[in-house]
Every structure is written in structure tokens, then in C-alpha cells.
């Protein structure tokens, strides 16, 4: 059940972000919905689920767009894993934890992406990339994170309730 829903979310997100998202770009910057989704899951569920989702979504991107398979898979997997670490106990209907976590994760992820894909190719103008790509996309992610977190929170609540009811019958 969970696996089917997670796969559907990852696939749907991949299709939407590679096709429709381009129409919603602001100043040429598109949000990283994959990152937001897996951070939300890492917070709501646990670090291992965040890692699995990150690995799957990253692999999908690498296979279709990437030059080297495994780079995004590794980065997103680690992002999902560490995003589940710091906030163990928090009120899950509060937005502060997801917003902080999405900001930190976006900055770290984009920075790591820059190092792996650009710095190693000799493109050393970090300040320019920071201003042109990293900061704008982080800001866009923050705004979207509020809505996506709410949606996932509701969806996850519904699934958990269903699972609990099932477990109750089984006993």
C-alpha cells in the first residue's frame, strides 16, 4: 500500500516537474519539488523512508537526464536521510520544522550539486551561481514547501488511519 503510493508520488512528480513545471518557472528558476517531497516524508515518517524515496527519485532523474547514473541518487538519498535526523519530536501540524528543513536541505543539496557537477569541471565562480541559482530556487522551494507539506501531511494521516484500522481487525 505505502510502496504503491510512494512510487505513484515519485513518478507523478517526475512527470509534472519535467513537463508542466517549465510553465511555472519564475525568472527561469523552477522549484525542486522532488527535494520538498522527500524532506516532508523524512520529517513526517522517518529518515529511512526519506532515504529510500530520495534514492528512487534520484535514480529516475539520473537514468533519464543524468550524465552519470548514481550522482543524484546518492545526493538525494543522503538529503532524505539527514533531513529525518534533527526534528524527531515536533508538532507535525506546525510548519516551522518543515520550512527550516527545506531551506537547509535546498541549500546543502544545491551546493553539493554545484560542487559535483560544476566545481570539478573548473567553474569556480561560486558567488555567481549562488545568486543566480541556489538562493532563488531555495526561496521558491520554501514557498511551495508550505503547500506540499500540508498535502502530504493530510495524505499521510489518511494512510496511517487506514493502516491502524486494518491492524485492529487483524488482532
Amino acid at each position, binding site marked *: 500500500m505505502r510502496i504503491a503510493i510512494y512510487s505513484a508520488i515519485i*513518478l507523478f512528480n*517526475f*512527470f*509534472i*516537474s*519535467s*513537463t*508542466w*513545471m*517549465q*510553465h511555472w518557472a519564475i*525568472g*527561469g*528558476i*523552477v522549484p*525542486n519539488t*522532488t527535494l520538498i517531497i522527500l524532506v516532508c516524508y523524512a520529517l513526517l515518517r*522517518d*529518515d*529511512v*523512508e526519506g*532515504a529510500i524515496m530520495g*534514492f528512487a527519485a534520484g535514480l*529516475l*532523474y*539520473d*537514468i*533519464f*537526464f543524468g*550524465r*552519470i*547514473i*548514481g*550522482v543524484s*541518487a*546518492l545526493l538525494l*538519498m*543522503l538529503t532524505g*536521510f539527514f533531513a529525518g535526523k534533527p526534528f524527531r519530536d515536533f508538532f507535525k501540524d506546525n510548519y516551522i520544522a518543515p520550512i527550516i528543513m527545506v531551506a537547509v536541505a535546498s541549500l546543502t543539496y*544545491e551546493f553539493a*550539486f*554545484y560542487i559535483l*557537477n*560544476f566545481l570539478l569541471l573548473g*567553474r569556480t565562480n561560486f558567488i*555567481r*551561481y549562488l545568486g*543566480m*541559482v541556489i538562493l*532563488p*530556487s531555495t526561496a521558491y522551494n520554501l514557498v511551495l514547501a508550505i503547500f506540499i507539506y500540508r498535502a502530504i501531511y493530510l495524505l499521510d494521516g489518511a494512510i496511517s488511519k487506514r493502516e491502524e484500522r486494518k491492524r485492529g481487525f487483524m488482532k
Partner: protein
Amino acid sequence: MDFLQKHKKFFIIGLAGLSFIMMAFTGRGGYQQGAMRSSVGFVLSHGQAFFAGIGNWFADRWDFLTTMNDLHAENTRLQDENNQMQMELDRMLHLANENRMLAEMLDLHLHYDNYTTMGANIIAHDTTNWYNNFTIDRGRNDGITVNMAVLAPGGLAGRISAVGFNYAVVTPLFEHTSFVAGQGLRTGDWGMVQGDINLSSQGLLRMNYLGADADLIVGDYIITSSVSSIFPPGIRIGQITDIRQGSGGWRYATIQPAVDFGNLSAVLIITDNFEFIFESEND
């Protein structure tokens, strides 16, 4: 889940190791087309085509609603332009015939007389902000190979950088991994046209390595150069908007591309591979 939670250190290290193994296998060379990419890409590109279709339908309706008022004026303008183009074309055909005749007299070989082209729809864009590659709905199946030139209304749009069974990845001109040898239409001065992340956000390209004696001015048209190893010569790239002193004694120009990348939904691929022709004629 409990099992994974209990052994999560091993699990995470295992996934990381798996990533590294995949990187090691696919790291050499460019974009390789293994069995995994072929099969997954085959399925994914169909899904993307479906979503892109829905998206384009809405975009078209929206376009129609927002531009309806201007259509009449634009139509008149286009008709005028068309008449003028027709006259120009007649003149050009005359010159082309003359050119061919003269070339035959001189026994020159014109190998880029006619291109065969193929239309393709754009189905998906790279999802990160770091790359601007997009995919089209034609692939190896349709005879597409890497490094074919991609055209769009106006001129050159980019090149094919990877090919799947039923899709291909296009690297557009303003991508920072794109390099095209260009020359001024008026003077023939040479330069390297490449994408630049600073300029591409303003929709501009950068033409590097202009020599000290290059006689280019603002407003000059830039076309693909005959020294290019993959592009057929004479395709319009854009128009110079500014020339500046760069580092290392070189000057560089900023170029307004001829193609409007913002509203691109279909492209044209030149299916003759010029890379091959040049190589075979050298020996």
C-alpha cells in the same frame, strides 16, 4: 520498515555503495545507452509525452485567449513580411543558381546544398535549474544520432546530445556545455558561441575569442561557421547586441539568439550527419 530501521546504518551505506558502483560503471565517456536506460527511458518518455500533451493543450488555449486581440494586426504584418520574403527568396534562388553554376565551373564540391529535416515535439525539460536540456519525441528509431543539428523557427536551437530508442536529448545553445563555432555573416570573423549562466537568464549567448582585428559591430548577424565540426555552415545563430573587452586580450560579444527559446514546443532536426561527412571527405 522495522527491520530497515534497526539496521539503517548498513542500509544507508549499502545504498551509497550501490550509487558509487553505478557511477563507476557509467562515469567513463558521455551519456551511455545501456539496457537500463533504454528500457526505463522508453517507458518514461511515453508518460512524459502524455503529460506534455495535456500541458500543451492548456497552454495553447491560454495563448489563444490572451493573444486573440493581436491576431489581426499580426496577420497583416506577417503577410507584408511574407511578400517581402518571397521577393528576397526569388533573388536568393537566383544567386544560389549562379553560385552553383560558378562552383561547378571551379569544380568545387557543395556538400551542404540540401538538408533533409525531420520535425519533433518537445516532451520534457531537465528538472534542475543547473541544466536546460530538453527531450524530444524522436530517437534512434527515427534515425536520430548524437550531434545532429537542431533547428527552430529563426535558426539554430542546439544539438542532439544523447539518443534513446524513441526519444533524444537536445542541448540548447544557451546551455553552458554548448559550444558552436560561429562567424559574422558580413565579415566572416570567427568566434566561439557558448552558453553562459549569467547571460542565459536574460536570454542571451556569449561569443568568445574575438580576435583583435575582428571587424564585428553591434547588429551583425552571426551564422554557424564552416570550421564547425558538427554543424552545417550558414545557419543563423543570432544577432550581436554588445561587444566587450574580456580577459586575456580577447573580446567577446553578447548575442541575441534568433530562436525564441521561451515558447519552443517543436523543433526541426537536420538528419544529415555533418560530422560524418567531414571525416569521410578528409581522407
